[in-house]
């Protein structure tokens, strides 16, 4: 019995880490721009399709094509912020919501027209392998994906902590007017931030395609999932996103096992409601 619990907990943690990376992108964008990216799931699906295409064309393992996908999404995100979203940063929430919703609709329809409705997977030699550690069966793909997610999160943390650009972005998030006063190019910083958020979610897509087959209509569910995670951890909080991902992974695993699998997303929403009410800044967010 114990080994079942161990297996379930470990699988929950590993999947949760990838969820966390996906949510990190949302968190970064919100933390700086205060824009809630309702097209987040769509961006991840594009990342997944990107990894799928690169595998089909060059036989690239998604783990290897990840930098290409993330880079492409960085450029796309940068352009999107500069060309479109920037005009709406100061507008009310509901207009941003409609804008990103419409953008998501366009992206999903484009995906349907380009790729068709089929679910696409990346067939890998090791897709069905697992490591055996004592009584625990570790799914190889999940281990790779989760380690990738944690490494990327670390790299991102280092970027924000130690580089000049990262510090400038944080300054911008803390005090936009102040940042302008000391001569930071806020427009550019915003675009870079959105690019980083998009790159994050693109990278998460490359990893996610190892776990789930991609189809155009995956997007909406993952947008919602990213929200749950980010709010659990704290919107704009860095480690909070990862923690939130792991928590969601664990709570889904446990409630699925102990109560009823079909109720497991209800528990995620329940958890979210509780956190929103009791600690609206999130588990790791700073109280404002």
């Amino acid at each position, binding site marked *: 019995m114990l080994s079942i619990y161990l297996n379930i907990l470990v699988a929950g943690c590993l999947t949760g880490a990838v969820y966390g990376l996906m949510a990190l992108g949302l968190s970064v964008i919100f933390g700086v721009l205060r824009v*809630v990216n309702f097209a987040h799931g769509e961006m991840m699906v594009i990342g997944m399709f990107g990894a799928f295409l690169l595998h089909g064309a060059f036989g690239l393992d998604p783990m290897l094509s990840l930098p290409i996908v993330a880079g492409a999404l960085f450029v796309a995100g940068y352009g999107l912020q500069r060309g479109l979203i920037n*005009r*709406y940063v100061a*507008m009310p*929430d*509901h*207009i941003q*919501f*409609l*804008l990103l*919703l*419409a*953008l*998501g*609709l*366009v992206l*999903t*329809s*484009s995906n*349907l*027209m380009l790729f068709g*409705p089929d679910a696409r997977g990346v067939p890998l030699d090791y897709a069905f392998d697992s490591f055996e550690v004592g009584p625990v069966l570790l799914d190889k793909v999940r281990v790779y994906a989760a380690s990738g997610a944690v490494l990327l999160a670390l790299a991102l943390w280092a970027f924000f902590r130690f580089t000049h650009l990262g510090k400038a972005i944080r300054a911008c998030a803390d005090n936009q007017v102040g940042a302008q006063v000391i001569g930071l190019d806020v427009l550019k910083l915003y675009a870079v931030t959105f690019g980083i958020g998009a790159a994050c979610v693109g990278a998460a897509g490359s990893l996610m395609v190892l776990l789930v087959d991609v189809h*155009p209509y995956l997007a*909406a569910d993952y947008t*919602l999932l990213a*929200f*749950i995670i980010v*709010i659990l951890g704290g*919107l704009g909080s860095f480690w909070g996103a990862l923690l939130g991902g792991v928590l969601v992974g664990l709570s889904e695993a446990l409630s699925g096992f102990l109560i*009823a699998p*079909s*109720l497991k*997303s*209800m528990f995620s*929403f*329940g958890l*979210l*409601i509780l956190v*929103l*009410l*009791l600690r*609206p800044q999130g588990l790791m967010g700073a109280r404002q």
Partner: protein
Amino acid sequence: MTTEAVGAIRSRQSGIWGLTPRAAVALGLLVAALLALPSVAGDFLISLMVVILMAAYLGQAWNVMMGFAGLLSLGHALYFGLGAYTASALFVHWGLPPWLGMAAGAAVAAAAGALIGTLSFRFGVKGVYFALLTISFAEFTRILFDHFDWVGGSGGLFLPVTNRADNDLLYLRGSSTMFYYVLVAMTLGALALCHALLRRRVGFYWQAIREDPDAAAALGIDVFRYRMAAIAVSSAMTAVGGAVFAFYYNNLYPETTFAMHRSIEMILAPIVGGLGTLFGPILGAFLLHILGEGLTVATEGLGVDGIKLWFYGVALLVIVALRPAGIWPWLRRRLGLEARP
């Protein structure tokens, strides 16, 4: 609120419903056209009008909360579903006439709204967080209803369908035309109600709270009470719409009734039409559905699945880009329908 501020708002709304005589005549003609429509229109047009009026009515209901009181709800499918399920379950199990069931549904929805409102107010959940809280409650309830056997769970709840010659308004059994008139009445009723609310103290307070809750509180407005009133009115109105929907469609599944996309559809019309305006939701509902039907016809011949929604998305982007405050405020200025202050 100062007397000057009230006076300013009041003067902007002078004339009949804040409209010029020309606009009042236009409104009268519009209502007459709506009433006369079934005698000239075919079945397709009537059922399209049912969909449009439903969107206009629900948009009006949502507008009370967001447009008037500034509370962004992205989970209105919750109230819609509660109204639909309450009225239908009472009818299916105990044969209660839908109008009574509707009242019960409105009460249930208002209670749910009050619960969410109280919790969020008590715990200081605001803005985007409030919006996400509403989504969470709607999704939570969707899955809950999937497991609620008394109303059929995920297997769905079905209203008995009988083929009757006559329209039974008491039990809401009848043709599309009957539902059309019911919805015309509801849409105009909602319009009149919102108009009346806006002209009263509560309407001014709502707008004050929407613009700046802290300032409103400083002026002595009981922000909590008036916000709760907005939530209650909005959720009860939405529930009534849900109940009529249930009796029109005769089958309910949690999956489609509480769906996130239903919440989204509800808010499109008022935002596109003009948030916080009386005619915005109605105009938005008409425009969006005409756009949708037009695109269906225009893209039919292309044979590319998904292209219609692509164009629809692009059209929404264009609207947000050109008229972020909605189309009605711009249109009424252009057409000279607005009363001069």
